[in-house]
C-alpha cells in the first residue's frame, strides 16, 4: 500500500474496521429505507386493480335505456339522476367542465321525468319550487345520503334549454362517470387499521415513524461504534 492509497476513501472499499462497521450500518439502514418507501409502493402498484363504485355499475346498467332509446322506466331515470348527483357530490374533486356536463345531464333527466304541464317550469330560472319538484321526481328522501343529494340540487340544477340531451354530452358522459367512479383498490386499501385504510396509515404515519426510528438507530449505533474503536470526535 502506497502513501497515496492509505488516504483513499471509497464507501464500498472501507480501509479500517471502523469504516467497515460504518458501511454495514449505512447500507442496512439505506436498504430498509428504500424497501419501506419504494418497495411498498411498487407492491401497491402491482396489486391494485381499478375497482368501480356501485354507482358506476348502476349508471352503466340504466345508460342504454335512459339515453340510447327512451324505453326507460321511472326507477331507471331516478337511478340515472342519482348517479349524476353522486359524482357532483364529490365537489372539489370534479373538474368544472365535467361538472357542467353532469349538471346539464341531471337537469335534462329531471325535465324528462316531468308531466307536460310542469315542464315549462324547468325552462326558467331554478327556484325553490323547481328544486322541491325535482327532489320529489328523483325520489330523494329527507335522510341519509338522499339528504346530501337534496342539498346539492340548488347548485346542480340548471335551466333546461333543449328537450333532448345534446350529442356532445352523450359522448362525454360515460368517460366522465368512469373517471370519477373508478378507484385503485386492493387488499392493502380495503384492510382497515386504526380506523385508516391500511395503505394510507402506512404512508402517512408508519413511514414517518420508521424514518425517526432509523435516524435514532443510526445515531445510537454510530456513538457505540466510535466508543468501540475509541474514536474521539474533535470539537
Amino acid at each position, binding site marked *: 500500500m502506497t502513501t497515496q492509497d492509505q488516504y483513499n476513501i471509497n464507501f464500498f472499499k472501507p480501509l479500517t474496521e471502523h469504516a467497515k462497521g460504518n458501511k454495514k450500518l449505512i447500507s442496512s439502514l439505506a436498504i430498509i429505507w428504500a424497501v419501506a418507501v419504494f418497495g411498498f*409502493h411498487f407492491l401497491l402498484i402491482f396489486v391494485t386493480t381499478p375497482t368501480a363504485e356501485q354507482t358506476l355499475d348502476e349508471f352503466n346498467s340504466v345508460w342504454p335505456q335512459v339515453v340510447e332509446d327512451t324505453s326507460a322506466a321511472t326507477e331507471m331515470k331516478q337511478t340515472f339522476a342519482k348517479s349524476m348527483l353522486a359524482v357532483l357530490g364529490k365537489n372539489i374533486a370534479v373538474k368544472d367542465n365535467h361538472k357542467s356536463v353532469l349538471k346539464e345531464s341531471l337537469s335534462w333527466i329531471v325535465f324528462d321525468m316531468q308531466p307536460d304541464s310542469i315542464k315549462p317550469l324547468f325552462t326558467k330560472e331554478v327556484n325553490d319550487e323547481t328544486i322541491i319538484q325535482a327532489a320529489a321526481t328523483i325520489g330523494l328522501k329527507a335522510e341519509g345520503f338522499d339528504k346530501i343529494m337534496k342539498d346539492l340540487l340548488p347548485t346542480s340544477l340548471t335551466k333546461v334549454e333543449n328537450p333532448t340531451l345534446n350529442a356532445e354530452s352523450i359522448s362525454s358522459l360515460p368517460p366522465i362517470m368512469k373517471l370519477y367512479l373508478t378507484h385503485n383498490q386492493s387488499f392493502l386499501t380495503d384492510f382497515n387499521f386504526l380506523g385508516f385504510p391500511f395503505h*394510507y396509515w402506512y404512508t402517512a404515519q408508519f413511514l414517518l415513524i420508521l424514518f425517526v426510528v432509523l435516524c435514532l438507530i443510526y445515531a445510537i449505533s454510530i456513538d457505540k461504534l466510535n466508543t468501540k474503536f475509541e474514536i474521539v470526535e474533535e*470539537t
Partner: protein
Amino acid sequence: MVLFSGFAFGQEATKLEGEFKIGPAIILIILLLTFILVGVFNRAKDTKTYWAAGRKISPVGAGMAIASNWMSAASFLGMAAVMYGAGYHGLAYVVGWTGGYVLLLILMAGQIRRYGKYTAADFIGDRYYSQGLRGFGAGLAIFISFSYCVGQFAGIGLMFKWILGIDFAWAVIIGASVVLAYTLISGMLGVTKNMQIQYVIIIISFIIPLFILSYKFGYFYWLPQVGYGSVISDIVNGIAPGAGISAMGHDFAILPSPEFAMPWDPATGQTAFQWLAICFSLMIGTAGLPHVIQRFYVVPRAKDARWSVVWGLFFICILYWSAPVYSAFGKVLSSNPEVGKLAKDAIVVYTAQLGDLYPLVIGFLAAGAVSAAFSTVSGLLVAGASAFSHDLYYNVINPEASEKTQMMMARLGTILMAAGVAIIALLNLGLIAQLVAVAFSLAGCTIFPLFLLGIWWSGSNRTGAWAGLIAGSSVTLVALVYFIAGKFGVTLPFQEFINYYLNAWYFAWLGAPLAIIANIIGSKLSKNKTPIEIKKFLAEKVHNA
C-alpha cells in the same frame, strides 16, 4: 370586546377573508415584537457568530431550529392543500419532505460538520479545489434560497391579508421589513434562538385546532393524529347526515368519496410514476438544500450534528403527522358546493373557520403560519447572504477583507436578498412563486451529488465535479425551459412528453442519477487527480481513518 370582535363570521365562504380581525392581529403583533426582542438580546458580534451561531447550540435546540427552519409556509399551509385537492397524491410530499432527512443523516450530517466549513459553497470550493466551482456553488445557493424565499413571501402575504384585511402589497412590505430587521440585528444566533421559539409556536398553534375539531365532530380526540383515521375511512364510505352535528349551517356529511384516499386515483390526474418521482426528488432535494445543510455548522460537535437531525426530524414529523387531519376535515366541511371551492392555499385556516372554532384559536393558527414562513425566510436570508459575502466576496473577490468589512458585506447581502425577494413578491408573478418547485430538484441534481461523492469517494475530482454539475444543470435547464414555455403558453417539441417526465417538481429523478454518473465518469477519465492533501484531510478529519 377584543375577545369577541372576530366572532361574526358569516355563513358563506366568501366572508372567510376580507375584514380586519383584531384578536388575531394582536397575537401577530405580540409574536413579531418577541422575535425582534429575541434578536436584539442575542446580537451577533462577529462573522463566526453571524454565520454559525458561535457553534454553541445544544442538539435539542438545534433540532428545534432545524424543524422550524424547515417547516415553511409550504409545510404549514401547502401540504394540507395538496392533500385536500389531490388526496393520496399529497402524501408524496409528506414522505418526500421527511424521508430526505434519513439520507441527510446517514450519508452526510456528521461528515459535513467534521469538514468544518461555514457554507455549502465553501465545502464545494474546498473539496474540489476550485474557485470556479465555489462561485458556481454560491450562485446555486443564492438562486435556490432566493426562489424558495419568494414562495414563502406568498404565504406571508396570504396570512397578513387574512389577519389584517390589508392588500397583498402591504402585507409583503410589512412582512419583509420585520424579517429583515431581526435577521440583520442578530444574524444566525438571534435567528437560531428565534427558531426555537418559533417552533413551539408553530407546533402548538397547528395542533390545538385538531383536538377541538376531533372532539367537536365525535372522533377520537385524545390523539387526533390517530383519530383522523376514521375520518379518512368515513370519507371513503360516505358520512350520512345526522346526530345534529353541523358546521356553519351545513351537515357534517359527505357522499362516498374514495378518490380522497385511494392511491393515484384517476380523478386526481396523477399517476403512480409521478408519486414515486416526486417522493424521490423531494428526498434528495431536501438533502441538498443549502439552508438545510448549513444547519449542521451551528452545533459544537459531529455527534451533536447527528443528534440534532434525529431531534429535528422528530419535531418535523409532529407537524407532518398532523397536516393530513386538516385536509380530511376540510374535505368533509367543504363538501357542499355552497361553501364553495375554497382557495386551497389557505385550507388549513379555512378548515378551522368552517369547523366554527373559537376565533382566537384560528387567529393563533394564522400567526403560526406566519411564524413558519418567517423562520424559513430568516434561515434562507442567512444562507443566501453568506453565499454572497463569504463565498463570493471574501473567498473569490477580496480575500484580504477584514472582519469588519466581511460583517458589512454579510449585512449588505442580507438587505439585497430581502429587498430583491420583496420586490419580486410585490410584482406578484405567479411564475416566480412556483420556482420553489424547481429549487428542490435543482438542489437534488447539483448540490446533492457533489456532497455525496465528495464525502464518500476521494476519487471524485474537479473534472468529475464539473461534469456532474453540467449534467445536472442541463437537465434542470431543459425542465426549466419547458416549464416557463408552458406558463407562457408556448408549445415546444415533445412538450407533453417533457412536461410529464421532466416536470419542475420532480426532474431530479433523472437529473440526480445522471449527475452522479457524469461525476464518476469525469473523475475516472481525468488525469488531474484529487490532490493528496485533500485526500488526507478527508481520510483523517472527515472519516477518522
